[in-house]
C-alpha cells in the first residue's frame, strides 16, 4: 500500500507540475436524499458516537442533521439505546462507560426517521464484527526527510507481530493527547500483503509533517501511535472514500463510484467497529543542548 501511494504521488507530481485548474459551472442532476451514517465503536471505554445526516446537493451549504431518531446498538446479548446530544444535533451517544469487545458482533439499528420525506418512517440496520485484539510491543519516533517533496518531520514506527491470517490496519497519530490525524486524508491504512505473519520491525506507520503547523513537534512532546485493527469491509470503505475524496485524473483514476456502505436500505456511510491500541514515545531533539549552549 505504501509503495502504491508513493508511486501515485510521483505520477501526480509529474502531471500536476504541467497542468492548470480553474473553476467551472456544472449543474448536477437532482439527487434523492439518503441517510448518511458516520458511526464508530471501539474497545475504548467512552461515549461512542453515531452521527446521522442527510446527503445534500453538492452546491448546498449545509449538511442537514437527522434528529429525533431511535438509535440502538446490540451486541447479541444486550441492546443499548443511544441518546441524542444536547449540543450536537444528529449526534447520538452511547453511555460513557460503553466499550465494545473483540470477537463480538454488533448490530446498529436506526428507526423513527423519514429521510426521504414520504410520510413513512424508515428503518436501517448494520452489522459489524470487532476484529480480535492485538499487542503493540513499542512505538518509536525518528526524524525523516523527503527532499523530493521538500518535507521533513518525524516518523512514528511500530513494533508488533502481524498475525498469520489476512489483517487490515488503520494508523492515527496523536501529539500530547491531541489527535493529529483527524481526517481521512491524514489516516494511514494498509493490508498486510507486504509483511503477512512477520514482525513489523519498525515499519513507518504515521508521520508528523513539519510544514503543517499542528504537526510540528518539539523536544519532550509525547507522540502516540494509535493502531486500529479494522475489518476488510472498513478497509474497502476507506479505499473507496479516499479515492472519491481525492484528486481524480483520467490517467490514474478509475471511474468514479459510490463508496461501499454496510448500512441497509440505501443509506450511505459506515458503521465501523474496530480494536484500537496505543503506544507512545517522547521526542528527543539532539540539537537542543547545543542550541541551549
Amino acid at each position: 500500500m505504501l509503495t502504491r501511494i508513493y508511486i501515485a504521488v510521483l505520477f501526480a507530481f509529474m502531471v500536476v507540475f504541467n497542468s492548470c485548474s480553474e473553476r467551472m459551472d456544472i449543474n448536477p442532476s437532482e439527487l434523492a436524499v439518503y441517510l448518511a451514517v458516520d458511526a464508530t465503536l471501539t474497545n475504548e471505554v467512552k461515549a461512542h458516537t453515531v452521527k446521522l445526516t442527510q446527503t445534500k446537493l453538492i452546491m448546498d451549504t449545509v449538511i442537514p442533521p437527522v434528529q429525533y431518531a431511535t438509535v440502538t446498538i446490540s451486541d447479541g446479548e444486550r441492546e443499548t439505546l443511544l441518546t441524542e446530544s444536547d449540543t450536537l444535533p444528529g449526534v447520538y451517544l452511547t453511555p460513557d462507560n460503553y466499550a465494545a469487545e473483540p470477537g463480538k458482533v454488533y448490530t446498529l439499528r436506526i428507526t423513527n426517521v423519514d429521510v426521504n420525506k414520504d410520510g413513512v418512517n424508515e428503518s436501517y440496520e448494520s452489522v459489524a464484527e470487532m476484529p480480535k485484539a492485538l499487542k503493540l510491543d513499542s512505538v518509536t519516533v525518528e526524524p525523516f526527510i523527503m527532499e523530493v517533496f521538500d518535507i521533513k518531520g518525524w516518523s512514528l514506527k511500530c513494533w508488533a507481530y502481524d498475525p498469520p491470517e489476512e489483517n487490515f490496519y488503520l494508523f492515527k497519530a496523536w501529539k500530547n493527547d491531541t489527535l493529529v490525524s483527524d481526517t481521512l486524508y491524514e489516516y494511514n491504512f494498509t493490508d498486510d500483503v507486504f509483511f503477512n505473519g512477520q514482525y513489523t520491525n519498525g515499519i513507518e506507520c504515521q508521520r508528523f509533517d513539519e510544514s503543517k503547523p499542528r504537526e510540528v513537534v518539539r523536544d519532550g512532546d509525547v507522540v502516540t501511535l494509535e493502531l486500529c485493527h479494522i475489518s476488510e469491509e472498513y478497509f474497502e470503505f476507506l479505499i473507496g472514500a479516499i479515492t472519491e475524496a481525492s484528486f481524480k485524473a483520467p490517467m490514474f483514476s478509475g471511474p468514479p463510484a459510490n463508496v461501499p456502505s454496510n448500512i441497509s436500505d440505501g443509506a450511505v456511510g459506515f458503521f465501523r467497529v474496530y480494536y484500537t491500541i496505543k503506544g507512545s514515545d517522547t521526542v528527543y531533539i539532539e540539537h537542543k543542548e547545543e542550541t541551549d549552549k
Partner: protein
Amino acid sequence: MKLLTYKISLLFLMALLLNSARSSDLNTDRKRLRGKVIDVNTKEVLIGATVYVQELKTGTATDINGMFMLKLTEGKYTLKISYIGYKSSIETIDIGDNISQTFSLENESREIGDVVVKAQRTDENITRTEMGVERIKMQTMRQIPALMGEVDVIKAIQLLPGVQATAEGSSGFSVRGGNFDQNLILVDEAPIYNASHLMGFFSVFNNDAVNDIELYKGDIPVAYGGRLSSLLDVSIKEGNDQLWHATGGLGTISSRLTIQGPLWKNKTSVLLAGRRSYADIVFFPFSKQQAVRDATLFFYDINAKIKHKFNSKNTLILNGYIGQDKFGQKFAEFSFGNKTASAIWKHTYNENVITNVTGIYSEYGYTTYSSFTEASSINLVSRLRDFGIKVDNTIILDDQNTIKFGLSSIHHRFFPGLIEPKGEESFYSRTELPHNSALEWGVYGSNIQELGDKLTLRYGVRFSIFQNVGPGTLYNFDDEYNVVDSSEYKMGDVYNVYQGMEPRVGLVYKLNPLSSIKTSYARTRQYVHMASNSAGGTPLDVWIASNPNIKPQIADQVATGYFRNFLGNQIETSVELYYKNMMNTIDFKDHAQLLLNKHIDGEFRIGRSWAYGAEFMVRLNMEKWNGWVSYTLSKTKREIPEINNGNIYIAPYDRPNDVSIVLNYNIAKRITISANWVYATGSPMTIPAGNYSTDNVQVPVYTARNGYRMPAYHRLDLGVTLKNKQKEGRIWESEWNFSAYNAYARHNVWAINFVPEEDNPSQLFAEKTYLFSIVPSITYNFKF
C-alpha cells in the same frame, strides 16, 4: 451468433473448393502484362512503385519482389511508372499477347528510400477488399503539427475517423468504441504491450525509423488475431543497401538519429535508430531545487534492423527494439519499457508462391524501488513475456485467386508482481504473485477471389485456440466474487481451453473505375486483457490471461461502405457504416484493486457492449495538398450486471461527434504549411449529484455511470516547415519545423474534480484541470 460463425466458416470452405474451376474461365479475352520495376543503376527492385495506365485511368503497384501484373485487352497503352525519390517514366506498350517486361527508373536525387510506401495501388481506396483500413503516409505524418514538435505515429492515428484518444496527451486509443487494450500493436510482427513514453505524451515509435503504418479497424486480416478492435501494423525501414546516410532531428523534448546503409552492398543492409529525451540533462541541472537537480526523467528507444539477401529467393530480416522510461529520485525510482525482437525469413519459391517464417519475442515490464527509510526499502517488479512463431504462405493461384494460409503459436508468460525487500534492514518479506502461462494458437486460410471485372470476394477463417498451461495457480470464486479455494497446476498441465472460429469475409463491387461499394463481416477473439481501470492506461497496468474465471472477449463486426475517388485518384472519399457487437466485455468492480492483487480475477466484471456509427472521409493526395477531412458519428454502450445497477450505460470512449481536419499545403517548393483542427463531443463522465461527510472529509454520491458529458473538445494546431535550399553536390539537407499546438489556447477539460470551498468545506464546487494552453515548438530535422 455461434451458428452464424460456423455457417460462414462452412461457406468459406465451400467457396475455396469451388472457385478455381469457375474463375479460370473468366476474362480470357484479356492479356497479361507482367512487369518488374528496378533501379536503373543498382538493378534493385522497387517495392511499391506505381504503374498507372493513362488510357484506362487505373493502375497497380509493384509487390515485395518489384513485380506487378495488369490484365489488358489488345491495344496500345501509355504507362506512367512512378516511385518516390525517382523520376517518373512514361512508357508506351503494345499489348498483343501475354508479355513480360522490365521497367527501369532513374534515381531523382542522392536520397533513396526516405519514404518507402508499401505496395499500394493508386486506386486502393476503391479496390481493397478489407474495410476500415487506414494508412498514413509517413511523408504526410511528418508535416502534421505535433505536441512539442514530436511527430508521433499514435497521435496521428488518433486523428483518423473511428479512432479516439483515450484522454488528452495519452497514447492510448479506442477504435470504434473498443477498449484501448483491444488494439494489437505490432512492430515488425512483434507485439508491443505498452506503446507509451512519458505517461503517454509520446509513443514508442521513432518516426524517423518508421517505414509504414496501417490501421485495421476491426476487419483484421485472418493472419492476425488476439485482439478485438484493431490491428496497428508498424513496419520499420529496412535500411539502404546502396548508400550510407543518416537522418535526425533536434527537438525541444528529445533528439533522434537514424543511420542506415549497406554492410555488404546489394546483400546486407543495416538500420540503427535512437532517440532520447533530455529534460534531465538540459534543464534539471539549472534548477534551484536540489530535489529537481537530483531527479531522473527521461526515455530512450533504439530500433535496429539487419536485412540480408542470401539470393533472389531467400532473405533474412532481423529486427530489434528496446525502449525504456525512467523517472525518480535518489530514494525512489520507476522504470518501464518494452523489448521486442523478430526474425523473418522470406522464401520465394517462384513469383507466385512465397513463405514467411517469423520468430517473435516481446517483453514488457516495470521496476520500481523506494527506499524512503531502510526499514521500508522495497523493490517491485512486474513483467510479461511472449515467445512466438508464425508461418505465413501466399500463393497467387491464378489471375483471379490469391490464397493465404498459415499458423501461429505464442507462449505467454505472466509475472504479475514480485515484491522484494531491499537491504537487510527492510522489514518487508519477499512476496510473489503466482506466475501464469498460456499458449495461443492460430490457424488460418483465406482467398481473395476476383469474379470478373467488378466483383472481388475475400473470404477466410481463423481458428484460434487458447490454453492455460501450468505451472499456475487458479483461484476459484463464488457468485459474490469471494475466493472459495485455489487449484495448483504443475508444469505442462493444460487446465483450461478456449477455442473458436473467426470468420472474416469481404466483398467489393466496383461500380466503375472510380467507385465501389464494399461490405464485410469479421469475428475477432481476445484472450489476454489489460487490467486497468484508468481512462488512459498507466505503466503499472498488468495483462491477464483468460482463464475459467475470465472468458475471452468476442466481437462481431459488420460494415458496409461506398468509396469514390476523384481527379484520377488524387481525392479519395468514403462513407463507412458499422455495427459491432462485443461479448464478454470487461469492466471492473468499483474501486477495484488491480495492483499486486493475487485475487485479481475477482475484480473483473463481465457483460456486453455494442457500438455503431458512420465514418465519412475525404483524403487528399494532391501535389500541393495532402491530408484528410473526416467526420465520425458513433455510439457505444455497455451493459454489465454489477455496474450502474445493471442499467445500460455509455461506454467510456463514446464521443458521438468527431471531426478531424488535417491539411498540409505545399505553398512553395521549400515551404509547407500545415493545420489540424479537431472537434469531439466531450467525454462521458460520472459526476456527483450530492455529498456527505465521513471521517471529516466530503464524499460524493453518484447517481448514474457516465451520466454527464464534459464540454466539447476542440483544438487547432498550426505548423510550417521550411526546407533549406538544395544545392548541387550539397550532402547536408535540413529543414526547420515551427509549430503551435492548441493555437487558440483552448482550455480543454482533462479532468473535473469537486473541491470543498475554503470557507465552507461541506460545499463543493467543480474545478476543471486542463493540460495545455498554446504549446509552441521548434524542431530541426536533417539528413545527409
